[in-house]
């Protein structure tokens, strides 16, 4: 097969057959699992209908990993799991262990190597995030550095079960929001605050004017004549600094060192359990970029988390807690100022007002 691919330069090979990577116990019990139990924040066990037990040890990863990291986890998988492992949607590594007596030694080995075991149960899950300054041209902030700073500070909540419910934090370095950022318990979003700068000459060579105009969600880009040649202008009064035009037209850069930063959003979820999936809502419109440790962002997340931990009932997600106590109290408890930016003025703005006399005084 390998030779054939090379000789003919086969394309459209397709997805690899996942059956090649399933462990014997998983193959045997595929579709026949009975229940699972969380043993501690790093370990769970899935029990099959026939009594077979599959142990999973979860370990955090920074998503961006080296070949050496990959070899480390392969060594562990070979030593304890017959070479079998998987990743989670939130970039964790999961070791799939068929022999119970391998669980503790595996965890000890990981801890010895400096890896983080945890992330199951009522914990802070690994923060899903984007590429940031490491690999993205539209980013308003770095991603990995903010995530590292937050996770260092909240580390205890990854390894110990002491929150009312699972808490999912997500990070996106611009409004493109790669990943499910906009419906997380706490979302951190890279935010621009100045309109794009137009390089008229480059624009003529690099950009298509109609698609640049069409890229704007607020119709703020109009055709214009610059030095007798076709170009565009931006209505700065209505521009919302989303960066969509820059995605389409490289001659409209929007990144701005002094004015870029991060906004904080709360109360979203994707699970349908109890309440319907919902988007996160604005808590803090802007915190300046402050590398390498972003203390303002870390403090804000800690404030939200402490208030949640204090106020929520067992099992309540951040959004369910806020719905119960009301947004006015959320702002009061956290001390975050409520500003004009918190009142929606985009497409569905009208649906977000309080059409009632219900108010907590």
């Amino acid at each position, binding site marked *: 097969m390998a030779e054939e691919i090379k000789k003919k330069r086969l394309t459209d090979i397709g997805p690899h057959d996942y059956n090649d990577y399933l462990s014997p116990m998983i193959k045997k019990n595929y579709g026949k699992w009975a229940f699972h139990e969380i043993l501690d924040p790093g370990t769970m066990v899935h029990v099959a209908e026939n009594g077979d037990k599959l142990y999973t040890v979860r370990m955090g990863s920074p998503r961006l990993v080296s070949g050496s990291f990959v070899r480390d986890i392969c060594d562990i998988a070979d030593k304890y799991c017959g070479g079998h492992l998987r990743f989670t949607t939130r970039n964790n590594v999961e070791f799939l262990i068929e022999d119970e007596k391998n669980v503790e030694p595996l965890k000890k080995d990981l801890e010895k190597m400096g890896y983080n075991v945890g992330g199951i149960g009522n914990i802070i899950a690994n923060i899903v995030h984007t590429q940031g300054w490491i690999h993205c041209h539209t980013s308003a902030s770095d991603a990995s550095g903010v995530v590292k700073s937050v996770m260092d500070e909240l580390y205890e909540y990854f390894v110990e079960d002491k929150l009312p419910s699972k808490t999912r934090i997500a990070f996106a370095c611009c409004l493109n929001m790669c990943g499910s950022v906009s419906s997380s318990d706490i979302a951190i979003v890279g935010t621009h605050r100045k309109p794009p700068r137009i390089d008229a000459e480059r624009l003529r*060579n690099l*950009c*298509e004017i109609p*698609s640049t105009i069409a*890229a704007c969600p607020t119709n703020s880009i109009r055709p214009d004549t610059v030095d007798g040649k076709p170009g565009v202008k931006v209505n700065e009064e209505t521009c919302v600094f989303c960066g*969509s035009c820059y*995605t*389409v*037209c*490289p001659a409209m850069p929007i990144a701005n060192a002094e004015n870029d930063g991060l906004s904080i959003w709360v109360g979203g979820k994707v699970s349908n359990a109890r309440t319907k999936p919902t988007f996160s809502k604005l808590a803090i419109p802007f915190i300046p970029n402050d590398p390498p440790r972003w203390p303002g962002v870390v403090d804000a997340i800690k404030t939200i988390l402490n208030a949640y931990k204090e106020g929520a009932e067992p099992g309540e997600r951040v959004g369910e807690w806020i719905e119960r106590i009301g947004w006015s109290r959320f702002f009061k408890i956290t001390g975050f100022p409520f500003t004009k930016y918190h009142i929606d003025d985009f497409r569905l703005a009208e649906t977000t007002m309080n059409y009632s006399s219900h108010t907590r005084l």
Partner: protein
Amino acid sequence: MTDETKKKVEDKIVGLVKEYAGKKRFKPIDIVKEMEKEFASEGLTKDDIKAALKEIMDEEKLVYGYAGGSFLALPENQ
């Protein structure tokens, strides 16, 4: 679709991209729609046009570019 028709479609697509280079970005979806109309009388389907487009790419007469959305472009050495 005969090889002859296929060649005609391919020449037409490559010709369009060359003619409008630097002025218009042809999105594959628009090219497929346009060619469907252009060659309607010869009974070509969307899949025929897509097959012709695939051959253009396999022979590297054109490449795919990306700026917010995908478009057809001349290879950089042209």
